[in-house]
């Protein structure tokens, strides 16, 4: 393979008709270029959507109570019930493989009236009663002070962590928020920290206008008893929440005396399932990219095969002479295969380089115009390049195979007679 004469000959043959070689090479380069661009675009979309998910623990479900739809144990249908704190303990005891179970309560909501007052300022915000774990399930960056901790829970401390949006509405610029008090529905809470949410999807602004207080203080202050509004449940990395949700819902149904077949009494949203659906979309996108790219590449390969056939035809006499001089037919076959592979790899590499610089250019433009919705950092990994190279080598072999076969099929005597 590393034979100087053989390589010299390959170069000689390919450079006899430079324009033809370039045109053929363009076919292959173009195919690989399209493949790279498609894969990079898919990756860009994937990156964009992943950025929207942010660091949210995706192996999570949310569960809330609704009205029962079936009578059970003497209780009528259409009954309104609430989750209780003991349900949290029961789930924790009876369903293995869970990482966090965060009971949550909530005040206010989108479009609600003003419920928070500080001095002369007032605003309408979502107020959550939460456990400290929620920051792991719904990641946020603490910009000052601290988040709710276990001591706050144990001592029913009336403290609050406010969003950057709340801070902007209730405080003057540069004002020190730590240690100040805000009044939530008539109850004073001391501000101990502020946060900023990482996830920046459509409701990004809403996400910064939330107030977190300890779950226990919330229950006490707003007369919740041990009611739980809803729960955020995250499974361990080894288990998917999708496979555990059935048993979680069953525990709640049993505790709350709900008919086991009552499908609508417990509402839930499986984030993991949604996330997986998006994941499989990325997978499908990648397949489409490979499919289209390889098909485009195929036409380039057919071009190479065609040119090789023409080259063989032109060189029939020469091949005849070589065989008369005693060249092994295998050597001729090898020569043609190597020419074909060499041509495909070189032109493919050119396509890869061109594609990569194109992506580089797009990235530079994206950087300069700022973030674009659902499209971040289109790129191809080294894996893709390796896969592309393997595709090229295989297709070069395929492209050269038929011409090589036809070259050694011609008998030397017939080849010599050709003028």
């Amino acid at each position, binding site marked *: 393979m590393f034979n*100087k*004469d053989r390589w010299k000959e390959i170069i*000689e043959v390919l450079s*006899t008709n430079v324009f033809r070689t370039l045109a053929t090479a363009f076919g292959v380069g173009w195919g690989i270029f399209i493949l790279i661009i498609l894969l990079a675009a898919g990756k860009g979309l994937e990156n964009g959507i992943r950025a929207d998910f942010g660091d949210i623990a995706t192996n999570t479900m949310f569960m809330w109570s609704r009205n029962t739809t079936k009578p059970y144990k003497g209780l009528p249908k259409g009954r309104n019930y609430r989750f209780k704190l003991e349900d949290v303990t029961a789930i924790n005891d009876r369903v293995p493989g869970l990482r966090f179970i965060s009971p949550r309560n909530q005040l206010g909501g989108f479009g609600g009236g003003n419920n928070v007052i500080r001095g002369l300022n007032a605003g309408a915000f979502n107020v959550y009663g939460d456990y400290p774990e929620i920051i792991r399930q719904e990641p946020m960056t603490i910009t000052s002070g601290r988040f709710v901790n276990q001591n706050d829970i144990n001592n029913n401390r009336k403290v609050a962590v406010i969003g950057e949006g709340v801070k902007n509405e209730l405080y003057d610029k540069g004002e020190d928020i730590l240690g100040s008090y805000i009044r939530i529905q008539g109850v004073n809470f001391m501000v101990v920290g502020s946060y900023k949410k990482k996830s920046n999807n459509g409701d990004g602004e809403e996400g910064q206008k939330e107030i977190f207080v300890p779950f226990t203080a919330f229950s006490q202050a707003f007369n919740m008893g041990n009611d739980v509004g809803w729960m955020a449940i995250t499974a361990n990395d080894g288990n998917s929440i999708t496979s555990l949700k059935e048993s979680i819902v069953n525990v709640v149904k049993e505790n709350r005396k709900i008919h086991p077949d009552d499908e609508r009494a417990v509402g839930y949203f499986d984030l993991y399932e949604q996330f997986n659906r998006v994941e499989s979309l990325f997978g499908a996108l990648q397949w489409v990219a490979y499919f289209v790219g390889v098909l485009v590449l195929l036409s380039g390969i057919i071009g190479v095969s065609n040119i090789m056939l023409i080259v063989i035809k032109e060189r029939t*006499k*020469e091949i*005849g*002479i*070589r*065989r*008369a*001089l*005693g*060249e*092994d*037919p*295998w*050597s001729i076959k090898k020569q043609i295969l190597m020419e074909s592979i060499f041509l495909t790899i070189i032109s493919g590499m050119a396509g890869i380089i061109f594609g990569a610089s194109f992506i580089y250019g797009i990235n530079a433009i994206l950087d300069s115009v700022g973030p674009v919705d659902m499209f971040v950092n289109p790129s191809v990994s080294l894996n893709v390049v390796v896969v592309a190279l393997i595709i090229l080598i295989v297709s070069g072999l395929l492209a050269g195979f038929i011409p090589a076969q036809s070259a*050694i099929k011609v*008998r*030397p*005597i017939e080849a*010599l007679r050709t003028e």
Partner: protein
Amino acid sequence: MIEIKDLHKSYKMGSNSLHVLKGINFSVEEGELVAIMGSSGSGKSTLLNILGMLDELDEGSYTLDNVPIKDLNETKAAQYRNKFLGFIFQSFNLINYKSALENVALPLYYQRVGRKERQEKALKYLEQVGLKEWATHLPSELSGGQKQRVAIARAMAAEPKVLLADEPTGALDSTTSYEVMDLIQKINDAGNTILVVTHEEDIAQMCKRIVHLKDGVIVEDKKVKQVRASEYV
């Protein structure tokens, strides 16, 4: 050196077949210079192709240097051609994008002779045919006679047992023809066995033995007194 017994060859042309060689018996000793003569269609080229292992025989036997030549696959045939035979063609058949030196070195390349040794040997043979100064020239830069001399050097390079020349002077004017024949005679003088296919009487007279073919059989096989080509040059 060459031993042919009861050789038959026919070609299929569509539905009917053409019986070209009809029982040839023929042998050549080492160091002979044989002319094979005949009008076109007499079967002389077919005979040469079979001798050159470029074509297969239908019936009979062919022994070359005590090696029976039969049932060869292409790889084996290529090896034998390389080891036993040197070809000189009417249309020279040089590879036109390779220099004279590279052309001469080609059979050695197929013998897997190292690059340096190959170059040295090829240059030596080019010198023998008087074209050392033309080593780096492409065939397109050479005259017809020079091309044929390069081809002869190439045929000699692998040091074959037999040289087969198919109308070596067919494309040349008479002066160059005699030059080429002079070269062939000198090579023969050095002890090489050479077969020349020709239809020119004067060329045949420059060999030591003339075999006449007609309609696929040998009609005459006689030794002649060699005319030295150098007398005409």
